């Protein structure tokens, strides 16, 4: 399906809900059951390793994208919870993966987006190059917007070289992440710390216990100022230096400063409220 046909399918009226692979379906609440489901087209459109960018349809699964990039020693460090997740779904949810400490948040990865607006138009935001200040940065607005202001159809992502080596380590107690050079992840569950180092094999050698990977992550998330993490109690896995805390129970809903501004985003981009009704970007 080409992008114009997809825009026509989204159309200009009636409630619609964009569907990926439903791996993060509960984020932001359940969609209106009457909403018509739409699925973004899939497939890799253009990939030139020397550009370190890839143009991909939003319905492509992360597994398919990773397979294409791995062949050239590259990756998109989005690290979704499931390889079945679609590129569009991962961006719409906007939750960064475990390696955020090193690679930054999801939003720094999206260079260009083609999305379908509430009135069925196909719109381009950003551009296909790694550095761009031509106009307002609508890509930032789209990441984490849960499909409530536009339906992603095709995107250009920034890719990275896959590190030469990567190792998880474990040690008892709270590790000071600042004593490590650019760690990819540092986790702490109140007792034990886990560290992911990536890079040159010599640089990432650390005299701690090597482990297979990180501990299992509880399903809910909460966002805290990083320096607050050492005060945490209870059952959790915290991303040190980042501030994301993984919890077993849903955290209290947070409200943004100036909710009126956020409401105005929705009103201006989806005046009739037809995009993903029922979901809340909180």
């Amino acid at each position: 399906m080409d992008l114009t046909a997809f825009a026509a399918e989204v159309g200009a009226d009636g409630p619609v809900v964009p569907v990926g692979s439903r791996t993060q379906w509960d984020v932001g609440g359940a969609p209106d059951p009457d909403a018509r489901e739409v699925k973004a087209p899939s497939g890799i459109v253009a990939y030139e390793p020397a550009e370190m960018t890839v143009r991909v349809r939003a319905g492509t699964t992360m597994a398919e994208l990773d397979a294409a990039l791995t062949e050239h020693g590259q990756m998109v460090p989005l690290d979704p919870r499931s390889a079945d997740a679609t590129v569009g779904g991962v961006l719409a949810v906007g939750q960064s993966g475990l390696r955020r400490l090193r690679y930054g948040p999801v939003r720094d990865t999206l260079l260009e987006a083609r999305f379908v607006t509430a009135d069925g138009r196909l719109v381009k935001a950003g551009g296909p190059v790694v550095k761009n200040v031509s106009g307002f940065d609508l890509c930032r607005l789209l990441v984490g917007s849960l499909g409530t202001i536009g339906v992603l159809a095709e995107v250009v992502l920034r890719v990275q070289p896959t590190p030469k080596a990567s190792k998880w380590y474990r040690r008892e107690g709270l590790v000071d992440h600042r004593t490590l050079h650019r760690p990819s992840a540092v986790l702490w569950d109140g007792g034990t710390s886990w560290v992911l180092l990536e890079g040159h094999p010599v640089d990432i050698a650390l005299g701690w216990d090597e482990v297979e990977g990180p501990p299992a992550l509880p399903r809910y998330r909460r966002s805290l100022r990083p320096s607050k993490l050492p005060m945490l109690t209870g059952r959790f896995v915290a991303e040190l230096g980042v501030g994301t805390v993984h919890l077993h129970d849903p955290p209290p809903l947070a409200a943004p400063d100036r909710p009126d501004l956020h409401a105005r985003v929705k009103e201006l981009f989806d005046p009739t409220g037809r995009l993903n009704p029922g979901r809340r970007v909180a």
Partner: protein
Amino acid sequence: MPSALVADLEAALAPARVRAEPLAMTLYGRDASVLEGTPAAVCFPESTAEVQAAVRIARAHGHPIVPRGSGTGLAGGAVPVGDPVVIVTTRMNRILDFDVEDRMAWVEPGVLNLDLSRAVAHLGLHFAPDPSSQQSCSVGGNVANNSGGPHCLAYGVTSAHVLAIEVVLPDGSLAMLGGLDPDPPGYDLRGLFVGSEGTMGIATRIAVRLTPVPSTVRTLLADFTSVEDAAAAVSGIIAAGIVPAALEMMDAEITKAVEAYVHAGFPLDAAAILLVEVDGRPAGTEADAAAVADVCRANGARTIRVAADLTERALLWKGRKSAFGAIARIAPNYYLHDTVVPRTRLVEVMNKVYEIGARHRLVMMNVFHAGDGNLHPLIVFDRREPGAMERVHAAGTEILEACIAVGGVLSGEHGIGLEKRDYMSLLFGPDDLDAQARAREVFDPDGVCNPAKVLPAGARCGDLQRVPEGAWI
């Protein structure tokens, strides 16, 4: 007799911090671009409350507002259009707080980029975005323009280093965008504000991320006998899986000009030189430096010089960062363009730039962020020569068109401002521009914050924008 507007501003601030005399009108009528306009008044608030007061007074008197930092912008972003009150942040230049635990600092918008890095250097930290203008540009201006610099290749542009922004909106109210935690609730308004060029409000406090200074650095200078070889080396380095901390290119003309000025030991007969910096932990850095040298040699590099110590490294960088100063010795004027093309199309576009220059009888020089594909064609000329300015503009338009034709964009770091706003339609269709206009409307429904900038007139129905006489847009 001061006007009612000036009298009200003087009452709210202090008489000495409000100016409306002819000298101020001229000084604050322009930035570092070739464009100019005229303010209704200029004021210098010292606090968020004073910014709010100035905004409310301007609005009450029916004037728009223009935020301004150091005025080093190259796209006319701070040039006053529509008889506005220019609100200058240079007196809001305090570093309010920094937190070593969180590796962040709260700063006022007028803090100079380099002053921030200097203030935290003793902690082993720095503010990573490093525009060549870093001695004089403000952090507020960096945020508004989403500025870049040589080290943004590996560390990311300003947007990746801003956590939260306190903004005075065009109605005088306050908003906090983003936050110190990683995922603040709501839409990413912080991300939208960065790069909005003063059209969405005035940043009055900014929380920035501070980055550790790397433990090991290697700086290499490679020289090539053809631009093609140098550009192939750029692609080769990236394709080899190395993201250098910086990857800069200078062509023959600019290398000669810089060498005569700085005496950095740059080869005078090179067609192009690459300045490559890698950093990190020792083993990885040495391995990357060796790999970079190999790729350069494989692509025909004649010599590769590795800076032996900090002094030599500083000298090489001085050569790169003094390029604009060096040009002043060659011709009285230069016009600096700023576009981005896919890295693999650099040679093609550079050759096109030289061809356009030859056709318009203009000298073209290139010194730019090759690793990002961020090209900076420099048109060197003498403004006093009849018709020179027209030829410069005509050549500039052709350069932009050539860049966009190969999949490039209008600006990589200087912004759209007044300079390129009417070129926006080369890149974006009416529906794309309408979406951008809506985004601006979230903050500035009346279009009174830095009017006539970024978006062309009519991007959303009902807007009417005037442009100053003689402005090239």
